[in-house]
């Protein structure tokens, strides 16, 4: 099996042999929901950070006992998986107020509605500011520090500055490697598809980072020798929120579009900025996670975010932008319209697609995407 296959297949299952081996050795796994959770803190505590997804879910009936039809289907399926005990490999869970959907489904955990392997289960709601300014940066630093101390206290471990500095270095290496992968996608004939790239970023959140870095180095050597993809009709930027289903991008790519870059949660937004390795680690983490160059639509710095996406489109020479958003997602409901308005003004066609967490209405999606690609008519 190639390193590319080894990595991308991790996206297709909830857990994987890396996590199983980790658990067998007595390792702990902490789930997190959003790219605002500093993975380095968990890593420096000797634990494995795992980005939450509901891969493999086929229904949400148990989740819907507590969530309603106005909650997004990502949150409902995650809660359903939790109710079924599918996350039994987790030793703790952390989230933040990304949106009401996440916070309210997290309540089901807080109120003891979810079966957990031990009790009281480690749960942490990070209080992340919505604005980027000096005061909120200081608050962010306090939050990162409290997160660190709560892990230390709950699991009786010590997170040293030395360990934090090492974790930052290791995660920065991961980020540099992923950035060099994205760099290859700028080529006229990119050596990987958008679906493969998504699989790789998902893998980076589902296995020990050291092993990921080794595999990714191997993979970069592999794809460097590969013939690039040149038989596409349009280069695309895919923006939007939570998407962890490779088949979704595969459908777009089967129709002739090639996703060459993205502004997705489990994508570029997960790894784009590095952490300063020279300053005090907690402050450096606070700065990187709060002031990231492309924020989540929960943050109010939308002008900066829109500019980043428009610059990204130019840098990767895209012919069109597709914004995918989950139904009921307020954050992306606003941002998708803003992105579309700006990109059209700049002469880049833009399509907004609504979706559910499980792929459905494939025929309608195919018609929309095909018609969009036909209007680009490269």
């Amino acid at each position, binding site marked *: 099996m190639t390193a590319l296959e080894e990595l991308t297949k991790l996206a297709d299952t909830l857990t994987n042999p890396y996590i199983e081996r980790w658990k067998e050795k007595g390792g702990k796994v902490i789930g997190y929901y959003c790219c605002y959770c500093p993975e380095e803190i968990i890593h420096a505590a000797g634990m494995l950070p795992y980005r939450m997804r509901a891969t493999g879910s086929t229904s949400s009936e148990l989740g819907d006992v507590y969530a309603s039809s106005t909650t997004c289907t990502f949150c409902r399926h995650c809660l359903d998986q939790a109710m079924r005990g599918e996350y039994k490999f987790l030793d703790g869970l952390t989230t933040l107020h990304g949106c009401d959907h996440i916070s309210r489904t997290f309540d089901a955990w807080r109120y003891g509605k979810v079966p957990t392997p031990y009790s009281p289960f480690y749960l942490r709601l990070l209080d992340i500011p919505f604005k980027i300014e000096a005061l909120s940066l200081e608050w962010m630093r306090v939050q990162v520090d409290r997160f660190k101390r709560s892990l230390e206290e709950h699991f009786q471990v010590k997170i040293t500055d030395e360990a934090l500095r090492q974790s930052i270095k290791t995660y920065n290496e991961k980020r540099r490697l992923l950035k060099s992968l994205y760099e290859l996608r700028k080529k006229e004939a990119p050596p990987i598809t958008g679906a493969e790239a998504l699989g790789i970023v998902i893998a980076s959140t589902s296995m020990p980072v050291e092993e990921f870095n080794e595999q990714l180095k191997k993979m970069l050597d592999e794809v460097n020798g590969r013939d690039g993809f040149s038989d596409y009709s349009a280069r695309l930027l895919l923006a939007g929120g939570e998407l962890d289903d490779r088949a979704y991008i595969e459908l777009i790519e089967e129709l002739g579009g090639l996703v060459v870059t993205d502004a997705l949660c489990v994508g570029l937004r997960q790894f784009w900025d590095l952490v300063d390795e020279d300053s005090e680690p907690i402050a450096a983490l606070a700065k990187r996670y709060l002031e990231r160059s492309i924020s989540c639509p929960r943050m109010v710095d939308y002008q900066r975010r829109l500019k980043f996406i428009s610059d990204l489109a130019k840098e990767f020479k895209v012919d069109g932008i597709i914004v995918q958003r989950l139904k009921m997602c307020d954050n992306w409901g606003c941002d998708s319209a803003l992105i579309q308005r700006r990109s059209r003004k700049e002469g880049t066609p833009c399509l907004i697609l*609504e979706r559910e967490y499980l792929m459905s*209405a494939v025929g*309608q999606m*195919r*018609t*929309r995407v*095909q*018609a969009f690609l*036909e*209007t680009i008519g490269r």
Partner: protein
Amino acid sequence: MIVAGCDVGSTTGKAVIMNDHTIASYTIMWCRPRPEETARIAINEVMEKVGLSSLEELDYIVGTGYGRLKIPFANENISEITCHGVGAHWLRNSVRTIIDIGGQDLKVIGLDDSGRVIDFVMNDKCAAGTGKFLENMARALGLTLEELSTISLEATNPAVITSQCSVFAESEVITLLNEGEEVANIANGIHASIASRLVTLVRRVGAKNDITIAGGCAKNAGLIDVLEKRLDTEIVRLPEDPQIIGAIGAALLATERLERSASSK
């Protein structure tokens, strides 16, 4: 140069044969369960009408519509959105907005001056505002689709149907019937509920004139009457059967493909 466009929708199959930019024959049929079968029957019918006996006699075939991936003999498939744009613009080049109401979905397509699709919106996976909705409503009223269309024009005081959902709308219709409301007023209210949904979609793509309508529901005079009032503009009619606009567009694109490959040789 003899080409065909084959539009396999969710409810009906349409095929058009064109000979050097002229429509030679067309057909409209109810769908069979399998799209391949619908396509095969439709193409055989149009070929028969012009005395063709073999698919090889057609120089190029473009498939479109919901079943476009399942048309075994098509040289290429193109989305029905592009095909409707091309077909409507060819028939009347003043058209800038097309409302396409099919059996199970509805689309509004915006064109630029050259007939290129610049924007489109579609309804979501639901029967609201589609042919399926009208079929259900007609059945609830004990009318045929034609009767539903014409009786609506006689309304004196249109009923208000607030539900967009075809299941809930049907129970509203039954409530109105139980209350003794006139059938004409109910029929008009049904059309108004679709029209109000269409107004939103038309405005969303810019509502540029001329606005035209295609698809099976374009034959519903009652619906068009209400829609024209709500949009406060005339809906221009195309000089061909509104159900075959997508198939015409497909045939035109087939012609274009041949012309392009001939000129590049």
